[in-house]
């Protein structure tokens, strides 16, 4: 058993063919197997390492008559034509006259002229050519040479190939009568080992395994078998993926960016008193953003527990700066928060003076009718940078840094207005279809906002509240904001992971 040779089907067929012919070209073998030569080259290499065949690489020259060669064979060689024409002109003639008579190209003519002179069959002097018919040696060798060339041309016209190029071929090639094409060839020969093994019946065709089973693995059967090749041109189906929601994946990435920039995540209640949602933010009670068309108020009659001192401080600020009758009952109404800025306020209120950064990334609510670009509920990325040296430039710098990390491109800034910040800014990025879109609203919290929260004068706060959904749509390549909040498994399974999250 040990000296058996097990070959896959194709190799087995090759050695059979080689053994039959003893010596053949790779082309012929491939043809016999109904394959292309390149299909069997790997097999041949393997068979050679097993010493069952020997390969030799040789060149083969295919010789063919050129167009000129074909003409000469039919209507005579140029030198024959020349001699014939000279004879016709009486044995001597001016070069010009012969040229007119003989009808050769300028090149042919001068080549022939040189050749015949060298042979001594003609002599040329002062533009006159004379035939030396008396020079018998010359006449004989001329005839012999012509005869030989014509015979060779005749031979070649039937199609020949050679393994080397003899001088006479080179001569014809030089005279442009033939074309030589080189072909590389692999010659396969059977080794004595192959012949012997075949004779002893020790070369066998391998079994084919289509599926690996525990039995195949355990039995060792795979050793003498060939595992069937898969046809990769046949398409396979998709698998329904189990996955994290793409929007959640995006939000998670945003969290990673913020924590990377030194922000601590904070959270606050979804249901806020108007006090926190508006009044503490220096939004006057007559401001249109507090209208029922812009805020969800509650039907529930919930209990209110609020710091009386804080209420008093807010009242004083509104009445002394904005000068209108501030009503506590307006401030003590519950709302579904319209932004997460109250979360920032609560953070400042809790942490007080210090150098810190905080963010929150949660839902806010506004009475809108859902459509492709609007929702009554969406995510806001809220943040603050608190410190003695924090400036408006820190805020602009944050926007640029954030845009860079989310791969959003260039950021442009424009003045903006929010009741609770001064200066205020709106950052714009370029949307591939919509042009410049506003995505980064922010500013420095006013002292009217910070004073009731108990932050000392020397601390400043850069703040922003980004509607992150618009950016999410851009990054995820969605045109409909409702698709971010989707429970449609088909859509979730189909959305590709955004490139921006993989850079």
């Amino acid at each position: 058993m040990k000296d058996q040779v097990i070959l896959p089907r194709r190799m087995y067929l090759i050695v059979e063919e080689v053994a039959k012919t003893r010596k053949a070209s790779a082309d012929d073998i491939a043809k016999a197997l109904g394959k292309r030569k390149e299909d069997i080259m790997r097999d041949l290499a393997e068979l050679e390492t097993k010493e069952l065949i020997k390969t030799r690489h040789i060149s083969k020259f295919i010789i063919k008559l050129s167009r000129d060669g074909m003409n000469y064979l039919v209507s005579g060689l140029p030198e024959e034509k020349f001699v014939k024409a000279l004879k016709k002109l009486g044995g001597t003639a001016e070069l010009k006259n012969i040229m007119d008579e003989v009808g050769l190209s300028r090149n042919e003519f001068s080549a022939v002229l040189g050749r015949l002179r060298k042979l001594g069959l003609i002599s040329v002097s002062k533009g006159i050519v004379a035939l030396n018919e008396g020079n018998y040696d010359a006449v004989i060798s001329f005839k012999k040479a012509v005869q030989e060339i014509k015979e060779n041309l005749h031979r070649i016209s039937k199609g020949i190939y050679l393994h080397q190029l003899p001088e006479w071929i080179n001569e014809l090639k030089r005279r442009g009568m033939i074309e030589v094409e080189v072909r590389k060839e692999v010659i396969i020969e059977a080794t004595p080992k192959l012949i012997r093994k075949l004779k002893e019946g020790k070369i066998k065709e391998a079994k084919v395994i289509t599926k690996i089973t525990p039995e195949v693995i355990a039995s060792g059967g795979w050793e003498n078998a060939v595992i069937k090749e898969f046809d990769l041109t046949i398409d396979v189906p998709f698998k329904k993926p189990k996955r994290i929601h793409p929007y959640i994946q995006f939000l998670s990435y945003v969290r990673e960016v913020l924590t990377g920039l030194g922000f601590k995540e904070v959270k606050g209640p979804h249901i806020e008193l108007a006090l926190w949602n508006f009044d503490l933010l220096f939004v006057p009670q007559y401001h249109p953003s507090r209208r029922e068309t812009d805020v969800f108020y509650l039907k529930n009659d919930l209990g209110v527990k609020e710091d009386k001192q804080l209420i008093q401080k807010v009242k004083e600020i509104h009445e002394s700066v904005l000068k209108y009758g501030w009503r506590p009952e307006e401030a003590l109404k519950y709302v579904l928060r319209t932004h997460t800025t109250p979360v920032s306020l609560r953070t400042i209120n809790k942490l007080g003076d210090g150098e810190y950064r905080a963010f929150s990334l949660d839902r806010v609510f506004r009475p809108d009718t859902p459509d492709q670009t609007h929702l009554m509920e969406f995510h806001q990325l809220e943040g603050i940078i608190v410190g003695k040296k924090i400036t408006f430039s820190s805020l602009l710098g944050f926007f640029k840094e954030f845009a860079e990390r989310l791969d959003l491109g260039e950021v442009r800034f424009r003045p903006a207005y929010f009741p609770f910040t001064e200066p205020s800014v709106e950052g714009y990025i370029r949307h591939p279809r919509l042009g410049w879109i506003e995505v980064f609203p922010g500013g420095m919290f006013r002292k009217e906002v910070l004073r009731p929260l108990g932050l000392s004068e020397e601390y400043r706060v850069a703040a922003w509240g980004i509607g992150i959904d618009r950016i999410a749509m851009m990054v995820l390549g969605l045109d409909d904001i409702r698709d971010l909040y989707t429970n449609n498994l088909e859509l979730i399974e189909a959305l590709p992971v955004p490139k921006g999250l993989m850079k």
Partner: protein
Amino acid sequence: MPVIEVSIQDLERLARSSLSNKELLSALELMKIEIEEIDTSRLVYEVSHDRADLFSAEGLGRAIAHLVGSREPKKFNVMDSGTYVDVSSAPAYRPYCLVGIVRDLSLDYEAIRQLTQLQEKLHLSYGRNRELVSIGFYDLRKVRPPIKYLAVDEAEYVPLGYGRPMKLSEVLESTEKGRLFSRLVRKGNYPLLEDSRGEILSFPPVLNGESTKVTEDTKDVLIDVTGTEPYLMMKLLNVMVTSFAERSSNPLIQTLSIISDGVGNQPFAKAPQLDGKIISVTSEEIKALGGVSLHPSSMSKILQSLGYVVEEMDKDSVRVWVPPYRIDVHDRVDVVEDVLIGYGYNRLKADITNPTHAGWRHPIEIFSDVVRNIMLGLGFTEVVNFMMVDADLIRFLTDEEFIEVANPKMKTYSAVRNSLIPSLLLTAKANYERGTSIEAFEVGDIIRVSKNEPISERHLGAVLMGENYTLTDGLVTVKTLINLLGEKAVWESAVRKPFIEGRTALVKVRGVQIGMVGEVHPRFLSELGVLKPTIIAEVSLEELKNAVISS
């Protein structure tokens, strides 16, 4: 934010300059204006709420004139009119009335249209649609001052736009404005504005009179502001008179005294008040906030182009007069902002310093991600639903209290979910038609009401829908999850909507109830149109986290 429409030709007339599109666009950017529509004759723009002075062509034209330098900012020519408004008999529920005069105007159709637009936009943006402040203006030549603002039980006049006299009560019933604003006045105690002859100028805040209306022939106007917020009213009167003044080549503004005979608590003795504020800003402040060093002379130049009058300048500060129509300027920081805007936000350094502390995610988010990964490993796909759902759906599915919105825009979103069950059933419904089964989960916030207090809480919900699912599949999921977190789940049978009695399990960890698993009752499934067995598991991640951490 208010949307304003102006005529380009009128704007150029007011700005005393012809404007290329490019000039106009860069000027508007500095004024927090966003263009909605523009063509050769018309500009529609959205302006931020704080810039009341830009709610019409008058103020916008003036601002552009200062910016392009066709006019220098200057203070107003104000004189006393020698006359007054008597508010001693004003209605107690709308006790204030301020009146001013602007003379030597030339008005045309477009001017009147603009000033009416201004009046309306101020009502909407500041006056809470006339509740707090109501503005009117009249042809002074048709009025005999002094003016009286008083309460009457009934009166008769020809309202603006109606060809016949009407009683006040009739105005409230049968005119469009009357029906709109009748809630702002009290029956038998109607506010009225009349002149010394008893001619009725207006029934504020409802409708002016026909006899004193402003036309293209009007040369001098009288402007009144009535309402409940005197300081706000003064600001808006200032904006009105200074805007009217833009319609004159040599405007004269006149004040009227306010006579109250000691009745009520009148904070002002006369109106309007156009003295303006004086505010100083230093180079140091600019540097500290904007990170840019500006010499006071550069600051002066910027502030002048934005309409401020430079009073004084020294080596490190500028003192400016703030025009009274800039009601958005409260103190120095507002002037600092204008300097930075004038300098150009895009020229400022944008530079976030290195963090002083490490950042980290909120613990519940870290825990949520741990749970998400386990659920993914258990073969579930994550879905996201809205927190807002139909109040009737919650009511149908549970007896627990929940948050309901008083002013929903749509019934579909009229409440906040108090559990993930409604969201998971909506998920089942949305995917019902598809394939043989779904295994999905959501990690999201809910708001429950406990002891009359709203509590936001992070929950995990899982839904299995398909022909072969039973309660076991839900229990297996929760058991494996809790096992992987190093704890043990204990079941306790219970009766809860919307689950089948006998196929509902409360989930307890260390004796604390953290959630529930159940097979949804066919009654609910058939009502929702989900005709396949549906298993739901819900766990409070806050409770689960506490249980895991405390051990």
